[in-house]
């Protein structure tokens, strides 16, 4: 009897973790279809479909993917509803897409301070020259937070992050006037370009957040 009960529990566990891990476009947003990286990926798969004899117009293909993805998510949500307590209380949630899509124009975090003589770099991510509070800002969990900004996601969190940076700057530089937190794009070069240039270029900035320190 106990053996049968154990088998039932194990089978239910396997069903639960497999169902929630099953690949699905979780977090899919309509706006993502306008993202050049996403469009390039979809176009590549349309090419594969075309090579297999299934020719579809680009826009129609994207629309079909959107509809199929939406339906898939609806079914997934319904199927997983009764299992949610198991995920919540036993920590059995899944969801794995390590670098499923690569960001071709990622960005790094930059923090500058103005002490009355103009902006000076304080922290430039992944450099050894500007390392203010690097122990914290380089830590993996803070990197995870900033990575969302690199995808131009979580604008509100970026503002909260800038507020936090400002509080730390007041403590460390009481005479400073302003602090600026921003992201600077690093368009990833093709390998042959990088072999020639030997350096990664950092170009446009976005989401500048300036805080008065006094």
């Amino acid at each position, binding site marked *: 009897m106990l*053996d*049968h009960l*154990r*088998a039932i529990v*194990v*089978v239910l*566990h*396997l069903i639960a973790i*497999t169902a929630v*891990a*099953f*690949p699905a476009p979780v977090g899919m947003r309509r706006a993502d279809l306008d993202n050049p990286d996403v469009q390039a*990926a979809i176009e*590549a*798969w349309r*090419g594969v479909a075309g090579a297999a004899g299934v020719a579809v117009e680009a826009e129609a293909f994207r629309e079909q993917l959107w509809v199929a993805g939406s339906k898939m998510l609806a079914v997934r949500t319904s199927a997983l509803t009764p299992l949610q307590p198991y995920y919540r209380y*036993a*920590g*059995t*949630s899944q969801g*794995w*897409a*390590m*670098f*499923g*899509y*690569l*960001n*071709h124009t*990622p960005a790094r975090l930059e923090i500058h301070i103005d002490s009355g003589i103009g902006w000076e770099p304080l922290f430039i*991510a*992944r*450099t050894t020259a500007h390392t203010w509070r690097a*122990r*914290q800002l380089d*830590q*993996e*969990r*803070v*990197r*995870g*937070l*900033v*990575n*969302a900004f*690199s995808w131009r996601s*979580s604008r509100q*969190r970026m503002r*909260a992050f800038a*507020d*936090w940076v400002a509080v730390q700057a007041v403590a460390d530089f009481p005479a400073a006037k302003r602090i600026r937190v921003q992201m600077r794009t*690093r368009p*990833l070069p093709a*390998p*042959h370009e*990088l*072999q020639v*240039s030997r*350096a*990664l270029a950092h170009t446009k900035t976005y989401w500048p957040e300036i805080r008065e320190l006094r």
Partner: protein
Amino acid sequence: MSHWRRLVATLAHREPATPLALFRIVTGLVLLVTLTDMLLTETLAVVWYPIAHGGLVDTQSTHWLITALGGTDPSVVNGLVATVLACAVLMVIGLGSRIAALIALQCCLALLSLHPASGGGHDRLIANGLWLIVLAPADATLSLWSRARRGAWVSVAPAPAWVRYLIVYQIALVYTCTGIQKLGSDWWPWGDLRAVYYALLSPSWQRWESIAWVADLYPLTQVGTAVTLLWEMSWGLVLLALWYRATRTRSGRLRALFNRLDVRRLYALIGVGVHVGIWAMMNLGPFSWITLTYYLCLWHHDEYSRLWRRVRR
């Protein structure tokens, strides 16, 4: 015998708990190192304290434990962290591991609920691992419990083996699903297999300041991309390999081939290469270590025993 009865019989199998004990010990160590790193780098307050107390948490957690303890507050966070550290120590030494893992799991889930954006896949793997330790007789050997109860640190008394099977299934599931979701064209030949090259250049995760030399290794990164994709997507073969190993006395050419090649060892070797490579080049926290911890359950007690004898010789 029906499929169900065969499954029941398989899950009733017992074996010495050495792999589970190793899984318990290393999971505890990963937990200790992860939290200690947060304490030493002073990021614990940054990611888990409320804004009013110098952190970045801007909303109240709805996790039942946080609510029960009175809400998001530094003293609550510190208490949870201290509890997890204590439980991790108990897991490492092997004393009340099931209870310790259950408490650590609930505290971890509460902490991670405070700022989900600062987490990663490794948090899930740690939580999954803790739950599996709750289910496992993991302190049956290599533990203080074994020493106190049986008078020896090591015990070869048979314990239920099914949790080891679940641990192996868990890691196979992680890899397979990760592989299937790699739909970005950079992972495929029509995208020139550039995924690993681009991932290494990502400023969010790069470990070293100077990274341009990756371009000189481009062909190697292409091989790495192809191998990673194929290896991840085909992890189901490891489950098949383990099944064939457990039923090696039966006939079949494929079974014989799998056992001769030791497919499991091949996948584990690639995995160690991939994860050590990731660790060397990228800062993804405890991701590599907690993932490799699952590998410990790919081997049976007898194999560890043989290895130990060889090392001591």
